[in-house]
């Protein structure tokens, strides 16, 4: 079975994605993301191998140990307010970005980023068309 270090886990769901046996359950509501590792008897190690933070360890099965579970509140978008990602993930992304870049946009949701990008690139055209219309 799997032992989880909740201090390291960022809630990215890699483990759940790669688990062939679907032993890592995810529950996502508008407010929070919850992950539960079932007491799995497989020793396939894929989740351990593919955890970005090495938060998981394969340990011998122990029937008495509780099933590990972690939950993360989702961070809200600065612009639209929609909750879109667990905060530890965003912090990790922020830390990983090249130093030359600004990083506050990380706290915008992808939809808002797309809208911003679209508005930026079309600003000139839109303005011109407005003028023409006027």
């Amino acid at each position, binding site marked *: 079975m799997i032992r989880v270090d909740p201090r390291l886990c960022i809630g*990215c*769901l*890699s483990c759940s*994605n*790669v688990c062939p046996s679907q032993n890592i359950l995810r529950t996502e509501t508008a407010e929070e993301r919850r992950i539960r590792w079932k007491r799995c008897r497989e020793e396939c190690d894929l989740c351990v191998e*593919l955890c*970005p933070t090495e938060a998981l360890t394969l340990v011998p099965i122990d029937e008495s140990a509780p099933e590990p579970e972690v939950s993360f509140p989702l961070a809200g978008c600065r612009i639209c307010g929609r909750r879109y*990602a667990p905060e530890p*993930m*965003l912090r*990790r*992304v922020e830390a*990983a*970005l*090249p130093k*030359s*870049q600004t990083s506050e*946009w*990380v706290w915008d*949701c*992808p*939809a*808002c*980023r*797309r*809208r911003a*990008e*679209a*508005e930026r*690139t*079309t600003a000139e*055209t*839109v303005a011109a*068309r*407005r003028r023409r*219309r006027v």
Partner: protein
Amino acid sequence: MAFYVDITRCIGCRSCEVACERVHGGRGHVQVHFVEDSASVPLFCHHCEEASCAAACFSGALFKEDTRTAFDVEKCTGCGLCSLACPFGVVWTDKIAHKCDLCDGRPEPTCVATCPADALSTDLDHLSRRARSRGARAAAQGGRR
């Protein structure tokens, strides 16, 4: 290699979206975004020089290869860090990351080949030549450039 979009020519037909989805098993990488009702813009992966998605990727699935940001589907775990790291919000994750691969293996990205308005190109020169000729034509007609 990257995409260049001539926004003025985009007619918002979403052919690029459809073409991309067709090639990538129903999971496209292009999204045509409408700004009010006055403009449309296809949003693509920019294959950024300093790709923040590749920087955030822990498994090595995203990496810079020459000028493009390549994606190795074998290594992807679908963690979603790349989609959170894309400043343009064009990478998305659904058990696995979906990101433009420039239609690897085809002579030309499908979206470029498909665009009926000739708004897309992978060749910057093509666009700039066209812009120059448009300018020249306008000048010849005595109009403003």
